């Protein structure tokens, strides 16, 4: 059969950004259709029950920067969004000790004192500065990037405003911000702290999803993100969605539906229909066709411009920019169903630390060695791991007495020497479990089920090209007006009526909804 329907807007991909754009367009009275390739919505933000009774946030597992205006505008809590705070971050050390940071400021301060009084003092000053810098960066993240090559007064004015914004930060903040943009997280933190597990654990945020080490310049900037959630007053730092990350997507989808958007799953787009240089609709793998005034893609730039449309239709500069857009995946994910609770040698038994994040990042050198494996095409033998037990925060995630463990793993390069296969996937899973068992020896006996996801799986299963969790590396030369390509960073594309709203656009990465919201603003402006 070959049905043809008419819509105002078709959104390719039911990830959280696509759903946000859909909701906002529907809210503006447009007739919206969302097409999701998989059987469930959410893209990388999904909750799946791979093993009876155990629910996993398969890929994305924590949330920090979901824009508060989106939560308000779309009334997400009404649609089931509930964020539970992650109370702490505990870093087991190689000597059997640990470093804990807790939601209780005084407790953290006492703990830091135990390791280094000077660090305990510096920690508050550091926090204050980062808070100010996060505050300074926030408006930029909520801004449609201007085109620095344009001579139009509008663009020039926007550039001037940005220039003035940064200039007016004053000396201390401006230079600190510049350093953040250009330094490695290790070097930046060296200027403040001496405690290895503290520096290493903070530095980790700079390497998540990137193809860089903690000593690679440019990794310091992401340190800021941990302070941004705080500003919005939504919740402190990282949080966890009740019902798993999929619940976030579901709540946005719920809002979109209620506002009148139509959402179809198992509808895999094969191509975007063009008529004399304008997007007019899409064709599905099964031959179904849908027409619309505009088409919005929420998938990554490679698929959006090199697969869905014939690159011949694009200006050569743009096509070339998309071809060389860096999108190397470097992260893996291991999800475990556990028969009981892990017993960490540094903090034996059950305790509050199990309701927070356990960070396997004992030293800067440990992290850098992990990167060295990846640099030469191997997965890290002893990787950085961000471990949480969602079932400790939300008992609904696992049967009584049992638990689910989510392990984010850095590094697992997409371009593994010899390529990925089942054998290597399991070898990777073993490396993760073995490393974890160094700190929690009983973990191996608890495992009922193990689901290992490599960048290759993320590409196959979740449509992330090369398994890059940010739909494009967050490197300096791929940010702001460079993301995804110079002169096309404003959510428009060289193809008329074809827009982009995924993480491959500014500000990119993480469950923020910012790209989806900004794209919707532009689309409605053009309408």
């Amino acid at each position, binding site marked *: 059969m070959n049905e043809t329907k008419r819509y105002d807007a078709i959104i390719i991909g039911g990830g959280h950004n696509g759903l946000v754009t859909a909701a906002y367009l529907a809210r503006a009275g447009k007739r919206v259709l969302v097409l999701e390739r998989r059987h469930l919505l959410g893209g990388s933000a999904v909750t799946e029950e791979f093993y009876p009774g155990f629910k996993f946030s398969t890929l994305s597992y924590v949330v920090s920067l979901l824009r508060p205006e989106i939560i308000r505008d779309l009334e997400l809590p009404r649609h089931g969004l509930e964020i539970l705070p992650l109370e702490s971050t505990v870093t087991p050390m190689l000597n059997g000790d640990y470093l804990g940071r807790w939601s209780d400021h005084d407790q953290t301060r006492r703990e830091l004192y135990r390791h280094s009084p000077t660090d305990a003092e510096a920690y508050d000053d550091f926090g204050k500065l980062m808070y100010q810098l996060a505050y300074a960066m926030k408006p930029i993240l909520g801004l449609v990037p201007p085109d620095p090559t344009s001579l139009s007064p509008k663009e020039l004015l926007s550039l001037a405003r940005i*220039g003035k914004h940064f*200039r007016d930060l004053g000396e201390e903040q401006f*230079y600190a911000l510049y350093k953040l943009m250009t330094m490695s997280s290790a070097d930046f933190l060296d200027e403040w702290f001496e405690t290895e597990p503290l520096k290493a654990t903070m530095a980790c945020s700079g390497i998540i999803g990137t193809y860089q080490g903690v000593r690679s310049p440019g990794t310091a900037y992401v340190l800021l993100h941990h302070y941004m959630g705080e500003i919005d007053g939504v919740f402190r730092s990282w949080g966890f969605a009740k019902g798993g990350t999929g619940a976030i997507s579901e709540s946005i989808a719920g809002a979109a539906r209620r506002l009148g958007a139509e959402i179809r799953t198992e509808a895999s787009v094969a191509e975007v229909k063009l008529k004399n240089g304008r997007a007019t609709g899409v064709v599905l793998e099964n031959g179904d066709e849908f027409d619309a005034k505009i088409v919005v893609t929420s998938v990554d730039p490679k698929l959006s411009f090199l697969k869905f449309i014939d690159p011949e239709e694009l200006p050569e500069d743009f096509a070339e920019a998309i071809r*060389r857009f860096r999108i190397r995946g470097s992260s893996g994910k291991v999800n475990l169903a556990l028969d009981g609770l892990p017993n960490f040698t540094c903090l034996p038994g059950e305790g509050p630390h199990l309701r927070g994040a356990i960070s396997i990042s004992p030293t800067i050198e440990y992290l850098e060695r992990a990167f060295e494996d990846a*640099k030469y095409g191997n997965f890290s033998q002893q990787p950085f791991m961000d471990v949480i037990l969602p079932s400790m925060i939300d008992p609904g995630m696992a049967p009584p007495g049992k638990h689910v463990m989510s392990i984010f793993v850095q590094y697992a390069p997409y371009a593994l020497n010899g390529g990925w296969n089942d054998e290597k996937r399991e070898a990777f899973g073993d490396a993760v479990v073995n490393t974890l068992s160094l700190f929690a020896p009983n973990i191996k006996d608890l495992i009922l089920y193990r689901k290992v996801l490599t960048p290759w799986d993320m590409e196959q299963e979740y449509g992330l090209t090369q398994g890059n969790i940010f739909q494009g590396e967050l490197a*300096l*030369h791929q940010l702001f007006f*460079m993301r995804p390509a110079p002169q096309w960073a404003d959510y428009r594309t060289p193809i008329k009526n074809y827009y982009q709203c995924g993480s491959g656009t500014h500000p990119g990465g993480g469950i923020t909804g910012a790209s989806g919201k900004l794209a919707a603003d532009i689309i409605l402006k053009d309408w």
Partner: protein
Amino acid sequence: MNDAYDTIVIGGGHNGLTVAAYLAKAGQRVLVLERREHVGGAAVTEEIYPGFKFDTGAHRIGRLQPEVVRDLQLAKHGLEVLPSDPSVYAPLPDGGGLTLWRDPQKSAEEIGRFSKQDASRYGDFAALIDKATGFLASIYGEPPIDPVSTKTADTMDGLRIAGRLRRLGKHDMMEVLRILPMNMVELMDDWFETDILRGTLGAAGITGIRQGPYSTGTAFLFLHHHVGITTGALRGILRPRGGMGSLSAAFEAAATTNGATIKTGSWVERIDVENGKAIGVTLVSGEKFAARRIVSNSNPRHTYLDLLDPMNLQPAFLHRVRNIRMNGVCARVNLALDALPEFKDAPAGDAHLRGAISISPSLNYLEKAYDNAKHGELSEKPYIEAVIPSLSDPTLAPDGKHVMSILVQYAPFDLKEGVWDDANRAKLGDLTLETLAEYAPNIESIVEHAHVLTPLDIEGMFGLAEGNIYHGEMTLDQIYFMRPVPGWAQYRAPVENLYLCSAGTHPGGGVTAANGYNAAQVILEDSKKKK
């Protein structure tokens, strides 16, 4: 107390001499104080073994600031700059290698032996690099902007630079903006597939810094090293006829003929400060000199932390100074040879040896060398850049013999285990010869003398902190308005009447005299205001 001078310059390196010459030319009474027995700083030619003259410090120069060459009449004072052709010869361990010539066309033909695609792209790449370096050159000859100043003049400076960027045209402007924060691996991925070409170009992005080609910002350093190199001559090398010493001699002549006084063997112990103003200097010998202003061509860290009493500086400022990263990683090996090295399956004749010789078979080779240094170890297989100046200038060595200056990287200043003692110095020398021997098997048999300088030796000899050849690592967070410290990048110091002019200031390292030129302009401007 000696009678007062208008200006005292601490350190007789080429930047110090440049400042001295300009100020003397403007009628000031200038005194240059040099710790060693001769001027030149790290640009010196020394006869270490009878008949063998070595460029013991720098062995090549960058783009000399054109105004300096003109205003100081350096040619008249005997400076002649010789561009080397070929630019570089990069041997392969199994024999043969890649030669890059000054003529991009000729280089492309060479590259064609490895990859037709790379050969076809080389010209465009060289042209792009030329555009990018042209932009850098334009900001190297003026003080950095003050990004947080609200003065209209400073805002205009910023807009002028933005204007220059725009004049590159939409496409090239964005290309330049894109390249600046990249790493060499990504830049090479954009263009080339041949390992030896990628490694040999990539090496220009890591020279002198404790970073590898995978590190962000190495693309900038690659551009930095190509500023002012004639179009298309990637890895091109400029050398003064007669060795680096003759360059310093020309600067010395320029300073003295303009009336500056130079005292060598004068080791400055401290800068004397009175109610927040620099008033003179005291030598280690106890001798004192007074002046209306002091210009330090010494390392910024040394100037602020050693020569000055920290009591004269704000804690926040001192914090920034202490955070200047040096990360010295370069060692130097000077070889006296009784014949030329013979590289496996090298082209006939010695043409290929007349530029730089670069041991850089691949980007991963360089990165692995960096991995060692990152963990505080000497590279197992180091990056090597060598020159044999005696080929083009026979006066540097006895008849039929040769001198070879070798830069060895990475040799971290701060070793994780042990210190830079004689044992480690010997180890470094052996490693260098072993590495070269893999490519030129006869090397060990032709060495008459080997003179090894560890980063510690380099620090002691030239006053380069931690042996960093740039007076401060050339990374994105330590250039332009961040150099030497944010807020004080315009050659003035937070102590009145004190100025800086070393490579530790914008535009950084390399023998260019731009630092001295910019500093001199700022000083002359200030002295006008005071009158």
